């Protein structure tokens, strides 16, 4: 029982960071209907920026943390302008967006390898490694911090979407981009905001992941799992992305804990396929009938 509780807590902690990344995929999907595979690259760079602000520039942790998030926020917007806007203007089919995203992802990953090198880098110890003991369950300080920071970020996002004018504009645009444009919503601005939000959270998630594991150019592959989580929950649905992420995090840590960590990744992909077969639009996605 103790072991189960332990795994559950670890799973919640990882799942919440997945959620931070997954909302980035989902926000973009809800408006533009394509899977932004460049997001993984942005998260990876977030981890690097945090690392260099902390060790290279010697900034205090909170400053480095926010700094990394702001930098990836800017980066995400630049990617949108460079790799997607020209396609949007030409109303290209969704596959072109995906390929462009994959090109960007290849570019970012290899840019890091070419300039910084493929070596692993370890974050300095910001939080003490000694866990907090509650009864027989021990909780890592970092895991706890990951959970709290992610939860706060997600709460802020929900508030933003539900209670601000821009948030409402995002909802409207997700519902129908053409009609929204006709109603006087600046959909181009909405898209920038959506990428900025996704980028900001990507930075935060990147730093948290970098602290938890290490920083290396292929860290984006781990972030693919947050994408799976987004699909899991139903692409384009924010609650779906969060629920899918938490579920995936918990299932993964439990698989790793009880079976073998080798099967952890396999489980993620098998689960993805199974969910798609039985719920073609994910857990929270809506099913629509074709209109003739």
């Amino acid at each position, binding site marked *: 029982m103790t072991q189960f509780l332990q795994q559950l807590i670890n799973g919640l902690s990882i799942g919440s960071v997945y959620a931070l990344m997954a909302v980035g995929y989902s926000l973009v999907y809800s408006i533009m209907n394509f899977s932004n595979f460049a997001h993984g690259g942005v998260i990876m760079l977030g981890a690097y920026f945090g690392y260099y602000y902390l060790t290279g520039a010697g900034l205090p942790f909170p400053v480095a943390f926010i700094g990394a998030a702001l930098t990836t926020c800017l980066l995400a917007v630049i990617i949108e302008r460079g790799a997607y806007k020209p396609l949007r203007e030409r109303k*290209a089919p969704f596959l072109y967006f995906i390929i*462009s995203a994959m090109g*960007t992802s*290849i*570019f970012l990953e*290899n840019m890091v390898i*070419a300039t910084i090198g493929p070596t692993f880098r370890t974050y300095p110890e910001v939080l003490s490694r000694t866990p907090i003991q509650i009864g027989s369950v021990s909780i890592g300080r970092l895991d706890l911090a990951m959970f709290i920071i992610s939860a706060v970020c997600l709460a802020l996002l929900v508030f933003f979407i539900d209670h601000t004018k821009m948030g409402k504009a995002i909802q409207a645009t997700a519902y129908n981009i053409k009609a929204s444009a006709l109603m006087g919503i600046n959909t181009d601005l909405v898209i920038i905001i959506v990428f900025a939000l996704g980028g900001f959270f990507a930075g935060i998630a990147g730093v948290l992941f970098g602290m938890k594991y290490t920083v290396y150019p292929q860290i984006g592959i781990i972030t693919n799992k947050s994408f799976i989580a987004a699909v899991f929950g139903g692409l384009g649905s924010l609650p779906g992305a969060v629920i899918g992420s938490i579920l995936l995090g918990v299932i993964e840590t439990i698989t790793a804990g009880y079976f073998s960590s080798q099967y952890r990744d396999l489980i993620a*992909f098998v689960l993805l396929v199974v969910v*798609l077969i039985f719920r*073609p639009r994910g857990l929270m996605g809506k099913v629509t009938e074709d209109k003739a």
Partner: protein
Amino acid sequence: MDLNYISGILTLAGINLMAVLGLSLLTGFTGMFSFGHAGFMAIGGYTSAMMTVKFGLPFIPALLIGGLAASLVSSVIGRLTLKLKGDYFCIATLGFGEAIRLIFDNVQYFGGARGWPGIPHYTNIFNVIILNIIAIVILANLVRSKHGRNMIAVREEELASQIVGINVFKHKLISLMISAAYAGVAGGLMAHYMTFLAPKMFSLVKSTELTIIVIFGGLGSISGSVLGALVLTSLPEILRAFADWRLVIYGLSVVIIMITRPSGLMGGYEFTPSSMKKLITRIKNRNKDLPNQMEGGKTV
């Protein structure tokens, strides 16, 4: 640049081309996008290597069995996922591709994640070229038959296809199975060229590379796929001198191609004797009327 080097690059391009031709049928002619074709290559590669290494079968039958195995797996996958719409089908294939790779990671019979060395070196420039020519002829015959036209109709407009009596699901499945068979044969060629197999050779990056080649060459054009495979396989090899920077350039060029020339090199046109003739007459008559499009060259 010596001859060995050039024939090496051509062989690699030919292996890629085999997989690209298959994907071209699925993506270019049937309008479905797959990010799991590396998985089918893996199945074909491992199966055919098993046939030659463990059962001592000759090369060509082993290749065919590899293709068949990939095709069978694809038919199961297809039955489960072909009803999914656009993006979700794409994602499901991605999931399958990765799952196949991770399964091979754990199969110790094939050496698991460490890989499987000592596969005989059977693939060479000659058999690659001959097999590709056969593959191209089969594909060309297929796409100009009623089956091919039905696939193109599915690509253009699913609902209208059904209304004219086309079994959309069946044609998607056939297209997927043929396409997976091509990928399986390509995997077999690769196994017997590299003489080594490891699951990481068949990652998502490989699937993406194949899709990029198809789009680069132009959707719905076989000649485009050939051209695309030749250019995009040799490009990273030629750029090898730049070491780490070559993939940076590669990624960047993919984005630039997407945003500047989205219809690909051939843009749906083919190199055929009749289209060439028409093109030549167009050029001759250029002074009389300036056509902005080579409409007559379209043969699909």
